[in-house]
């Protein structure tokens, strides 16, 4: 095998999985393979996609962030909290001008990211449990802000980006694409991006080579929080409401997207390309299962089994690559 092909194996395996899924659903459902539905799939993976960009950075560093969904939720709720709500919304909120609301919400998720980063890099709490605690803290803040109510209004800009369309294309998809592209460029073409791979590939070597490992780790955690925050804000606009636990399902989806795409949980291998494939695999899987007539109770199991199959393929292909 050529060096090039071998290097590409990490992305070829998930890609094959994706092709198989698309072919399967195209054959079993008449409504699946349409342009309109392709747009659906893209919209459906957009929020996950924005979260997954940050998570890719974190996982490339061989860390994990379990607080992404909670931070998305807090930020979405916060931006609504600072927006004037309709009279029937029963929340004692603090209406501010749109830009102020957005800034405050982003500041909020930045702070939460900073707390995560401090816990992990300064105090030395493993990221798994630091972000587990942050997940609870995020849920707590969300609960305090909305107090069981639902808010609907968000600033116009957020609403445009989350629910608007430009030339027929949902802005949300464009934003997600922009985030993915930016993530890819940063990872591939900036020193910081290369440091991320170095820190994930061999933390000690990175440190010896003069990389400020703590700073890189901290930055990566904050980036993850910021991506989650943006995803949460736009998600609230997209779904039309801000409420507690709204984004809970996104934690596993985002992790699964990154990992199914072929990025290694042990760090240093993979990238945004893999994440995109992973997002598409999960997006097609979730969307496709809605298109075929299938026992609702069976769906959960099938989803789990396909996930497992994708993982097994990834691992085997990886072995082929490593031994070649």
């Amino acid at each position, binding site marked *: 095998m050529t060096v090039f092909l071998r290097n590409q194996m990490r992305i070829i395996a998930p890609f094959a999985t994706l092709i198989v899924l698309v072919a399967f659903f195209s054959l079993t459902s008449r*409504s699946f393979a*349409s342009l*309109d*539905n392709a747009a*659906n799939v893209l*919209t*459906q993976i957009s*929020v996950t996609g924005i979260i997954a960009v940050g998570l890719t950075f974190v996982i490339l560093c061989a860390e994990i962030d379990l607080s992404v969904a909670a931070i998305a939720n807090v930020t979405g709720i916060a931006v609504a909290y600072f927006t004037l709500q*309709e009279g*029937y*919304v*029963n929340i004692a909120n603090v209406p501010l001008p749109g830009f102020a609301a957005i800034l405050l919400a982003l500041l909020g998720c930045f702070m939460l990211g900073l707390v995560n980063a401090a816990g992990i890099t300064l105090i030395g709490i493993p990221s798994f449990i630091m972000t587990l605690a942050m997940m609870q803290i995020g849920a707590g803040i969300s*609960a305090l802000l909305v*107090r*069981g*109510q*639902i808010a*609907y209004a968000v600033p116009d800009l957020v609403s445009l980006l989350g*629910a608007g*369309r430009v030339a027929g294309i*949902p802005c949300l998809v464009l934003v997600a694409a922009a985030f993915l592209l930016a993530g890819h460029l940063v990872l591939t073409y900036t020193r910081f991006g290369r440091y991320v791979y170095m820190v994930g590939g061999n933390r000690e070597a990175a440190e010896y080579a003069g990389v400020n490992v703590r700073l890189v780790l901290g930055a990566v955690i904050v980036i993850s929080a910021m991506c989650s925050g943006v995803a949460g804000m736009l*998600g609230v606009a*997209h*779904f*039309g*409401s801000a*409420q*507690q*636990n*709204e*984004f809970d*399902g*996104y934690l596993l989806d985002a992790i699964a997207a990154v990992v199914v795409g072929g990025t290694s949980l042990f760090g240093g291998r993979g990238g945004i390309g893999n994440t995109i494939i992973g997002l598409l695999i999960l997006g097609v899987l*979730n*969307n496709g299962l*809605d*298109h075929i007539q299938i026992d*609702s*109770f069976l769906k959960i199991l099938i989803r789990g089994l396909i996930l497992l199959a994708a993982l097994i393929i990834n691992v085997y292909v990886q072995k082929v690559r490593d031994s070649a």
Partner: protein
Amino acid sequence: GRSEKPLKAAFSNAGLQATWCAQGKAAAEYWGKLYNVDVTWFDGQLDAVKQRAAVDNMASQKWDFVAIQAFGIGTLTQPVQKMIDGGTPVIDMDTLIAPLEKINVHSFLAPDNEFMGSAVTQALVAKLGGKGKVIMTQGALGHTGAQGRAKGFNAVVKQYPGIEVLDTQPADWDVTKVARLWETYLTKYPQIDAAFFHNDDMALAAYNVMKARDRTNILIGGVDAMPPAINAVADGRMFATVRNPSCRIHGGAIIAGVAAVTAGEKAGSGIPKSIVTDGPVVTKENAAGMLWMQDHFLI
């Protein structure tokens, strides 16, 4: 009537994350103040295990009466039985704590989910003139409320051969799943005339998707009739919803509790074992009045 000495009551409901439950809490506290009852809340956090722990803790304290909405049927039986055995009247709200023959609660105040489902469906079908394509979006399949509402829906559509049911997939009360499902539906089905949702939150989320694709001609029916939905009905985003009277149930629990303590009402004699607390269908016509009653915790 109002209690002379202050009473101590414990409430627990499924989870305050849900607007319906949060409104219930406000109603219970409002009626509690009027009736001189001090209400302590044990949040179930939409988690059977957490609610069980909370109710265990409730059961190890002393209360004049207790009112509970179970998140998972059957998961609270033991501590509730302990309180009943200790002579505390337990009022069951909205969802069965356990099948009624298994546990002797003071009274069971609940809406008729089947009725709510059929009433809204009936309103939708009538508007369609008995002909058209409809979709039902279900709550979590394990939820008894969802099961009742689905039953009501099915009973109505069965009577109209002109009605075609396109899809009935569950969205588990989750607005993100509703959005995903409805994006697919709008792609898959060029014609959808009406949609019935097992609650309003899901209906409003789906409306969002419909609006994004200019498919707002779909008649939307929901359940709960919380203020945002009533407003949606008033301004035409939704066609109808049916009131699931949170205030009536939670306020009723206060009143039933006070009556049990001060007037010595007994289950089955003074108060029926089971009370159906139904609410009306809300359409444009009665929306304003319904909103006012909710503002004052009347329904």
